[in-house]
Structure formats: C-alpha cells, structure tokens
C-alpha cells in the first residue's frame, strides 16, 4: 500500500466487504425471481369461505423454471392463476427454484415467513430428499408434490402426490403421427429418462404402432429440463436420419417445434398448445390442464379436509376423463381418417374400454415386461416404475 490507512477500516475494506456480501447474495439466489400475488382481501372474504380460520389459506407454489416457459411451468402457473381469484386464498410463488437445497430453503421460507400451510412443489426432483425432510420437520404443513412418488407407509402422512396421465394424450397423438409419417420413423426428444416421461414415450410408440405396426421411435435424451441448443441439434440429427414426425417431453417445446418446422417435418406438442410456432407441421399435442386440479385441492382444504385426517387422498390422479390432460386441436396436416381413429381411441381411453398397457408386451431388448393376460390400467403402481422402452423404440435409458 502506498500510504498507511488513517482509519482501521479503509474504504477498500468496506468496498470489499460490500462486494463479497453482494456476490454471496447474488450467487445464492442465482437467477431466481420471487413474486407474491395475493388477491385475497380480508374485508371482502365471505364468512363462509373463511369459516375454518380468519387467516387466509396460504398456498406456496415452486416452479423449476420461469413461469412463462411455454411448457411445463407455464401450465402450472396458469393453474395457480386460476385459484388466486378464489376468496380466502393467498398464493405465494417462486420461479426458477433448482432441484437442490435451494428448494428446501424456498419451502422453509414460505412456511416460516409467509405462513404457508399447503405447498405445491411442482418439479420431480424436489421430492427426495427435500420434501421428505421438510415434511418430517413441519408435520402440520401439507406437501403436495406433482408426481406419483408417494408410497403409503413409506413416506410421511402429510405428503401427497398428484399427477395426470398425460401419456393418454401422447397415445392419441401417436396415432395422428403414424398417419402423417411417410417413413414410419418418428422421433422423441426427452429431457430426463424418469418413469413418468418414459411412459409418455412408450404410449406415443404404442399409439403409432396401433396404426402402423412397423413404426419406430428414435429416442434422444438431452439430460436437461431445458437446453435449447441440444434440443435443436437433436431435431436436426433426427431429421438427417429420415425421421419425419417429432414430439418431445422437455420443459419448453418451442425450440423443438420451431426446428422441426424449419426442417419441413411434422411435430406434436407438449405441455401447452404450440400450434402457433409450427403452423404447417403441427399435428396435435399433449397438454396439461391444472386449473381444475388446483381448484379441487383448494375446495377440499377450505372445507377442512387434509391429508392427515384422511379427507384428501394421498394420490390424486386422473387422465383425459378427469380433465387433467387434453389434446391440442388437430392441425391442417391431420387427415380425416386420422382424426376419426384418434377420436375413437380418445373415447376408448375416456370410458375405460381401451387399456394401453395390455400383455403380452415386450420391451426393445425382447424381454417380456407385461405377461400375457395382464393389463395395467392407468394408476397401476407397476406403470409408475416404468424403466423399459417398448418394442419399436430405438434407444436406451440406462445411460
């Protein structure tokens, strides 16, 4: 130093300290955005709605990505927006919460600071260990995880799972895809090979095979919930291999749809309706419809029902028939014959006469995965453990 400092704390120390504190704060909350939306006005709430308690019911919702990602998180945020206007309910949200200890910290602050008594952590990786650990710590708070991971007896009583059988919509979309494909080769861009996503791939394949038994599906795993460059490269390399219909299960399907459109091949959407970005090639898509689900939960909780007193089922599941999921309107390339066949399958799935997973079914290594004479209806726990790829899928998920 050129001259000795006059004060024990020099300006350099102060600036260094401020920078360090700033950098720490910034990195620990890296790219996170926090918002709190409340439409509940204590004066305006009707006495019946707030009968159980004078305090509004505080619901915390966590998203793994941005709330308007044109996919998974947006579908949940739209569902959350649907319950914000209900009387006596206050919703606190946080977007871009990674599946790390950050998720536990976000949940803890929602419980301790915002007084949340119900949490909806909407990403798969929040469950183990973060939700399980906090559920032990806060036994009075209800943790409703979007997924199918809850197991009776194994997990705390204040934890529940809710999920939609979106694979039913993929089955119907697979039918439309097989009709549109000239080569019989379809492609699937997958974020992470977890059972519920593998199941959408298998249902897509089975739907396509119900039209064309020779159809195949090429699988490409990107390994990230959202990685636009890799998703675009995946579509490009599949188009190079002669694949002419592509679908995906990633957080934001927009890049996959746009790249397929640029390559002049067909695509089928995921999460929300993406027809606008691929006007020529968009066939249909498997969409979520969470508003109904969140409204049902809110109504049950306001009526005094909880997971702990048995009023709310620990597994809350539904498919096309319960409006958990729906299909995008058919695009221009879908023929009348394809529409008729797809609608017929949809009706069969809704009334239960069509069961997708019926034995004998073989995986793509030739091993029998469902024995002859067995059928797994939606909701069967065997389907929740799916770690095999059905015959016709080209790929491997053991990684």
């Amino acid at each position: 130093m050129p001259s000795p400092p006059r004060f024990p704390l020099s300006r350099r120390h102060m600036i260094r300290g401020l920078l360090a504190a700033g950098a720490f704060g910034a990195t620990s909350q890296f790219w996170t955005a926090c918002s709190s939306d409340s439409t509940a006005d204590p004066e305006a709430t009707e006495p019946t709605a707030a009968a159980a308690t004078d305090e509004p019911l505080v619901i915390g919702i966590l998203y793994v990505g941005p709330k308007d990602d044109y996919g998974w998180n947006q579908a949940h945020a739209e569902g959350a927006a649907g319950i914000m206007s209900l009387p006596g309910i206050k919703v606190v949200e946080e977007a871009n919460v990674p599946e790390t200890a950050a998720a536990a910290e976000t949940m803890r602050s929602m419980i301790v600071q915002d007084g949340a008594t119900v949490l909806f952590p909407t990403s798969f990786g929040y469950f183990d260990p973060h939700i399980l650990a906090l559920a032990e710590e806060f036994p009075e708070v209800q943790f409703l995880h979007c997924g199918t991971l809850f197991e009776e007896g194994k997990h705390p009583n204040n934890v529940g799972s809710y999920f939609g059988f979106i694979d039913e919509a993929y089955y119907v979309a697979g039918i439309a895809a097989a009709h549109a494909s000239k080569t019989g080769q379809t492609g699937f861009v997958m974020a992470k090979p977890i059972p519920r996503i593998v199941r959408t791939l298998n249902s897509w394949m089975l739907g396509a095979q119900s039209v064309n038994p020779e159809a195949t599906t090429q699988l490409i795993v990107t390994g990230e919930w959202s990685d636009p460059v890799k998703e675009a490269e995946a579509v490009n390399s599949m188009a190079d291999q002669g694949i002419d219909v592509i679908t995906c299960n990633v957080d934001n399907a927009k890049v996959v749809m746009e790249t397929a459109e640029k390559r002049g091949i067909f695509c089928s959407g995921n999460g929300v309706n993406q027809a606008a970005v691929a006007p020529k090639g968009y066939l249909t898509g498997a969409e979520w419809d969470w508003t109904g689900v969140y409204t049902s939960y809110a109504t049950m909780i306001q009526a005094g029902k909880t997971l702990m007193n048995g009023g709310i089922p620990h597994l809350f599941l539904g498919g096309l028939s319960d409006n958990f999921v729906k299909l995008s309107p058919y695009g221009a390339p879908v023929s009348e014959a394809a529409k008729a066949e797809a609608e017929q399958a949809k009706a069969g799935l809704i009334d239960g006469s069509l069961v997708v997973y019926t034995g004998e079914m073989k995986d793509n290594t030739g091993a029998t995965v469902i024995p002859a004479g067995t059928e797994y209806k939606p909701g069967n726990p065997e389907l929740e453990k799916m770690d095999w790829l059905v015959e016709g899928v080209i790929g491997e998920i053991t990684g």
Partner: protein
Amino acid sequence: MTPDSLGWWGIPLAILGGLLRGSVPFLFVSLGECLTEKSGKINLGLEGSLLLGAVTGYALSYHSGSAWIGVIGAGGAGLALGAIHAWLVQQRRVNDISVGIAMMIFGGGLANYLGKPYIQPTAPQLPALHWGDWSDLPAVQSALRVSPLLLIGIAIAFTMQWFFRATRWGLIIRAVGESPTAAKAMGFSVGRTQTACIMVGAGLAGIAGAYLSLYFPGSWNENISSGQGLLAVALVIFARWNPRQCLYAALLFGGTQGLGPALQSVGVEGYYYVFNAMPYLLTLVIMVVTCSPVRSSVGAPASLGQSRPDA
C-alpha cells in the same frame, strides 16, 4: 433404412452442421473477450451482454420485422452494458472480476425481466446462405446452411489478428494491456483505450446473443444461452489471447455440441451424459496439455485484471 436416411454418415455431417451452426456465439463472445483482455481488463459479464443482446435482438426483430435491425440493436445493448462495466472498472481500486460478476447477473436479470412478453411470439429470423443446394439430400442442404454472421465472425477474427500485429491502434491496445504506466508515459489515454475495448467487446457479445435468438436455436427463452457466454470467456485463455486461435477453439466447441444428439440418433445410446460433457472434458484436456510450469498463462497481457491504483 429409407433412402433419406444417412446412417453413420450423419455423424460427420452433424459435427460439420453443429460446427457451422453452434460456433458463432462462442466465436463472437471469445473475440469480444480477447479484445477486452488485450487492453488489460477482464469482462466476466459477457454472458449478461449475450442474454441482453438475445432479448433485444428478438424484440426489435419482432417489432420492426427485420432481423438485421435486431442484430444492430443487440450490438447496441451490448455496447451499453459494456459502457457501464468500463465506467465502473475505471474507478480506483475497483476489481474488474467482481464488477463482471455483477454485470453478468444484472444483464441476465434485465434480459429475463424484459423478455417475459417475448417467449411466445415468433420473430422474423436471420436469412441463411444455402451452400448445400447442389446436393439432393435434405440433410446436406440443412447442414450447409451458413449464417452470414459466421462469415462476419471469421472476418473479424482475421482482421483482429492483423489489427493487433500491424496497426498503430493495435499496438496501443497491446501497450496498455502490457504496461499501462509505459503507455501513459508515451501519451496514450489508458482509460479511453480500455473503455473502447470493453464496449466493443461487449457489443460483439450482444451480437452473439442476437445469433442465438434469431438464427440458432432461433427462439428467446431464459435458458437460451445455457452458459455459452461464460464458456466463451474461458475459451480466450486456452486460445492464448490470439484471435485466430479463438476461431479454432470456437469451431471445436461448436462441433462437439452436435455430437451427443447425433450419436444417439445413430444408435450409440448409452453414455449420453459423457458425450454432453465433451466440450468441458476437452477444455480440461487442453488446459492440462498446454499448461506451463514456468508461467501460469502464456500469452496473457501482463497487466491483466489489475485494478487502477491510488493516484
């Protein structure tokens, strides 16, 4: 296999396509960082300039209908962020690494905030040069679709190489980066030279952002860069502060990006996490191979990262 399918030929084609498509952001950001670091300053905030450039480019293209206006606007957004960085690091005893991290978070946060309304709409895209039309194969046609920005980037790399070696201004920048006191004694303004270099460098990063949102992948969302701006800053170190080597490094990284998906599409299914980690593995290998026991980073400007001392 259908006549349209390429089989294993898809691998070199995917690498070539990935190289032509994916290398441009690496190239522009690493050239920008190279220019900045030659003048003795570090700008870690280029990821922020890249993201702000991406959203500015997308928004301007959407509203004006011309993708090129978007590219110019993106460059302008980068210049503006660069100006803030340059002003801050000219203050006494200010550390440019800390300012860079702050600018990275600021730029990214601002881009995410401003970008909310632009996730769903589709903006006009940059045109491509169709170099593959001689081929009947759609795969070849697609792989050889080259963005004019790649050619501009290559031209900038060679021009910058010549600029540092053979021009008076290039020499001034190098003098400032090697020994600011000597440059000052010769009558050159250290502050003004560094400000210009930082701003132009950040402007190049902004253009890289416009390439991401307007050409490949060609869409705006918050994960659009997936850390490419940060990686490109590191690229400069193993390109040894040499613009031409920045070009080769950027092509290498662009090429490996397409490798993981391409291998899966021809049946190499397992180990995709390994293939996806290829660029990083490559960085480590090159770092180990080129490290010197004598000097930690050969080719680094001598005054790199030094903050302005007390007057």
